[in-house]
């Protein structure tokens, strides 16, 4: 009988130290409660993709790639291009990751990031229609998690947004409702830069950008995605713990102000 590691157990001693430090508004890794880890963004690393980005958030590392092609639109949006985000955690990324199809956490991750990009209307999907109802551009964003150290939501969101912002796509035109390359390369039409900010509640304290250790201890998790005008365009709450209305308001304020700072970093890295 050999045990399988199910999830990360934080030592009781370490948990107590973590909570003690929160009372002094500090964290085990020396950060302030509302401080992100260092964000590093590199774009255009995958030559064969239409766009790509490698993002590291502390020890968390995420690679996103964009592939653009043509296909039939979804029946309910005949005049819009198709956008699909998919995420997978590689088996070597963490001691707790398993090989095989994405598990429910990876699916939640992809959906939350997808929602942020979609609901902020970052990509001008209506410009990606070639023949209404028949032929549109299809954008597939595939995300691979290379290393797990907490807060995959934000790292993945930054990677997807950076990859989309730097994507160059081949131009198509319709010929008898069939796609034909014009030979031109155009930038993917984007108008906004959504930024996701994830907070964790541990006891009565809200912290941003939880690392793996803090995620293992957190009671509740809340993700907000904001756009350039400071509008909240997507949200997701996770874990069984509850949040008071006041905490949700605080979290949204933090998400908006942190979102502004991070948007600058993404803008700088993606030109």
């Amino acid at each position, binding site marked *: 009988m050999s*045990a399988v590691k199910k999830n990360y*157990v934080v*030592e*009781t*001693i370490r948990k107590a130290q973590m909570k003690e430090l929160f009372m002094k508004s500090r964290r085990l890794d020396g950060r302030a409660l509302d401080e992100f880890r260092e964000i590093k963004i590199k774009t255009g690393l995958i030559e064969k993709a239409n766009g790509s980005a490698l993002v590291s958030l502390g020890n968390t590392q995420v690679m996103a790639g964009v592939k653009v092609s043509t296909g039939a639109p979804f029946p309910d949006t005949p005049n819009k291009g198709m956008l699909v985000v998919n995420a997978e955690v590689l088996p070597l990324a963490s001691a707790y990751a398993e090989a095989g199809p994405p598990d429910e956490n990876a699916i939640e991750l992809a959906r939350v990031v997808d929602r942020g990009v979609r609901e902020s209307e970052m990509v001008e999907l209506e410009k990606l229609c070639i023949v209404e109802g028949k032929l549109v551009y299809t954008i597939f964003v595939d995300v691979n998690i290379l290393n797990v150290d907490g807060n995959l939501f934000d790292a993945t969101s930054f990677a997807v947004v950076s990859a989309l912002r730097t994507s160059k796509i081949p131009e198509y035109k319709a010929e008898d409702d069939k796609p034909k390359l014009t030979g031109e390369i155009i930038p993917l039409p984007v108008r906004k830069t959504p930024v996701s900010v994830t907070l964790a509640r541990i006891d009565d304290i809200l912290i941003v950008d939880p690392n793996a250790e803090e995620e293992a201890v957190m009671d509740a998790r809340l993700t907000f995605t904001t756009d350039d005008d400071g509008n909240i365009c997507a949200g997701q709450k996770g874990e069984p713990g509850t949040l008071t209305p006041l905490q949700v308001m605080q979290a949204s304020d933090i998400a908006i102000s942190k979102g502004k700072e991070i948007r600058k970093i993404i803008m700088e890295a993606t030109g």
Partner: protein
Amino acid sequence: MMPKVVRKFVIPGDVIAVGDYRSGSYIERRDNQYIALRVGLAEIGRDEVKLNPLSGPYIPHVDDQVIGKIIDITAFGWQVDINSPFFGYLPASFVFGKEFSPSTHDLSSKFKIGDLIAAKVEAFDRTRDPQLSIRGPGLGKIPKGEIVKMSPTKIPRLIGRKGYMIKMIATQTGCELKVGQNGIVVLTGTPEGIVKAANAIRMIEQEAHVADLAKKIQSYLSGGAS
């Protein structure tokens, strides 16, 4: 007095020695050649060859003291993460005694998930998970302290010859150090002492192969550069 020991760095495939010796772990014998299986420091004695790898996971050995954390409670014992590819198993009868019965004893009253324990490897033969025991001086639950992790292969350097290094760190920083052979060290003492001891441990880990390491650590601890 002591027989002359030859030390050399080896990489996998290197012939450490030719002849007839007793050989330790990470060494394969082919005809009368002894071949290294890891990157490390080989020691060739009068009748024995040994290889201390520079890195690698912790492989349990009987009688090792390890520090582990409880990750699961089963009906008859605790599952313990000992920082190794193998999970430790602490049977409840080793804690409650022979009269242990799952219906009358509550395992979580003794150790909860997340608790840190010092334990001894009681039995291990690679076919089953290593069995742990907490009978012995200094073993059992660790109530407080700062956890420092280092490479398990470098623990012998931290302890030093006859415990010289570890005693030096303890006396100079006023800290108490509990060392597990599996690469986990728990420090208790003043905050300044803990920082100093943790830095010394980092130094030992990075410079484990350097000669005169004890002197270097001594000069760091006695106040030099910090």
